[in-house]
């Protein structure tokens, strides 16, 4: 299981990569994709929509279940990763490369953990 040190993580298993002070990429962690199993569809959010930290931003469907993706930040969706439309399996093969959406004008954050604490969290949760 991989937990890149340069990322922050939410307790809902999303990762956040800050591009500057108010812009970030969001995806799901290696742990999350492994729990979900093979992803078959990513119900991408819409650019321009507002997201709120700790609330649902979109959902993903695996062969096992539909699961919400919570936004770890509050802000506005600047862009979505359209590549996931054709290739949802990228979330399995490259969870930290396959960002789901980019948020801009970030005004608030959910509680975020660093890689070490997040790794510990995934172990204590399970």
């Amino acid at each position, binding site marked *: 299981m991989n937990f890149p040190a340069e990322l922050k993580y939410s307790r809902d298993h999303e990762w956040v990569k800050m591009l500057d002070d108010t812009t970030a990429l969001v995806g799901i962690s290696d742990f999350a994709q492994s729990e979900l199993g093979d992803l078959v*569809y990513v119900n991408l959010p*819409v650019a321009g929509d507002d997201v709120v930290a700790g609330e649902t931003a979109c959902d993903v469907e695996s062969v*096992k*279940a*539909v699961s919400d993706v919570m936004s770890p930040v509050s802000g506005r969706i600047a862009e979505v990763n359209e590549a996931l*439309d054709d290739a949802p399996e990228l979330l399995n093969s490259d969870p930290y490369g396959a960002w789901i959406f980019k948020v801009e004008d970030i005004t608030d954050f959910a509680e975020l953990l660093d890689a070490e604490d997040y790794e510990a969290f995934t172990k204590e949760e399970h």
Partner: protein
Amino acid sequence: MEQVVHYLETGSTDPAYNLAFEEYVLTNRCEGDYLILWQNDNTIVVGQNQNTAAEINRAFVDEHHIHVVRRTTGGGAVYHDLGNLNYSFITDDEEGSLHLERFTRPVVDALCALGLQAEASGRNDILVEGRKVSGTAQRVFKSRILHHGTLLFDSNPDMVAGALNVDPAKYQSKGRKSVRSRIGNIRSFLKEDMTLPDFWAYLTRALSSADVRKDRLTENELRQVRKLKEEKYDTWEWTYGKSPRYNMTSKQRWPGGGLEIRAEVSQGVTQALTIYGDFMATRPIQDITNALTGCQFRPEAFAAQLKQFGLQEYLGGITEEEFLKTVFDTAV
């Protein structure tokens, strides 16, 4: 599972109400184990990420007054009638929760105890003698999980086949596709016949690994359920509008000429539309495509736009009803 299983019934066969009831329990009863047994009257239930129009046989649905609803779990479209019994488990999302075994095992065991050769198959099905009698799907909500499934007990196979008999060429999208299976009815495999009420009572005991406690939603909770039904599950926006972006191509020949229509639909809205044909027109068809672009992709919305035109000038002998049927397989 813990010691007590809360058992609920919805008291309704309205699919929109039942899905609202189930969602309410998943998102608001945040502790304990729940079992719900319920039935929908003639209904097609599509998966969370499916293109509804592509999954249903519109003409058949209209003819037989079949309900169409979208659920929040994954997977493909299924047909329910009063010969089908649904079960829902709602519990904590623990390690390995998403493994099929945890939830299908009690169902398979319950069927085997009736003398059936039941087995879990693939990812989400339960088979008896090679025929699918149950399909299951799951939804994670925060730290809770919903696992639900159908149990074909005595369903009408002609209705199942007819309702889901679709034209695979008409729609193209990235959404979840359905897989067709050979289905079977549990009742036909029983050594000793049972009625559906007997089967229901049997499952209430068999699917509860511990003490079953009959529970009920409060009046206030039921008000929330009705609100969710009206604001979500009853709406066109949820059932059809939420379909993943798709393209539609339809070609039909009418007495007034051939008509071919292509559309691109996203968020339930017509993003682009092209009309071809060999009908006799005296005005540019662009007026109509402009009016329909940006409008909801549903027959009522198209009909409202078409009212402003003298259609024979644009479509020759092709009528509004024929135009709508070409696009939607139904008129208003």
